[in-house]
């Protein structure tokens, strides 16, 4: 079946460094991908999205890269801040949005 997964369950970075969170997906028919941020006790919050006709998209301090050849996408956060500490999910849209298990990002002072 369709699955979305992340390479690392946890990631610790120093404040000010760049963070890279990776995600792999299995469904080659997935045509739309979203990164979400979830803080404790809250619902997932949209960060950035990318459609399959693109390989890179930039937002404010965030960049998403999509490699359809190897079915991989990544989220890059520039100058990571304490407020970036959260769990990050990638979601791929095939028939419905399928979420990966998440990566917990911890920002060290």
């Amino acid at each position, binding site marked *: 079946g369709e699955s*979305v997964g992340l390479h690392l369950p946890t990631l610790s970075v120093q404040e000010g460094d760049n963070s890279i969170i990776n995600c792999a997906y299995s469904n080659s028919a997935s045509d739309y991908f*979203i990164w979400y941020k979830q803080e404790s006790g809250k*619902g997932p*919050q949209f960060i950035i*999205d990318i459609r399959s006709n693109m390989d890179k998209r930039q937002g404010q301090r965030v960049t998403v890269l999509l490699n359809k050849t190897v079915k991989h996408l990544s989220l890059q956060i520039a100058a990571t801040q304490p407020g970036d500490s959260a769990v990050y999910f990638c979601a791929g849209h095939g*028939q419905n*949005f*399928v*979420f990966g298990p*998440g990566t917990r990002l911890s920002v060290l002072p």
Partner: protein
Amino acid sequence: GAGVSQTPSNKVTEKGKYVELRCDPISGHTALYWYRQSLGQGPEFLIYFQGTGAADDSGLPNDRFFAVRPEGSVSTLKIQRTERGDSAVYLCASSLSREEKLFFGSGTQLSVL
């Protein structure tokens, strides 16, 4: 309000009881989704509505789970004969259409004792 609203935020019930969880989507969003999230896991798809109809209910785990959206806006997720394994956060999300980004509510934490 401007966002997706879910009530109650917490629900504690006893095994075997019936519960209803409510979702009020963003005004104008025709697509509505229910997800279930267990501790340490990503959201798991349950059901998708397009307007009033359940377009895809393939994620509902069994026939104890049912959802409605009678007027194409507010949706209710209904769980009969609750079991301890139903304990989780139930998330609702809405979007302008099926292939647009989802906006999530804060969820209902369901605890079955």
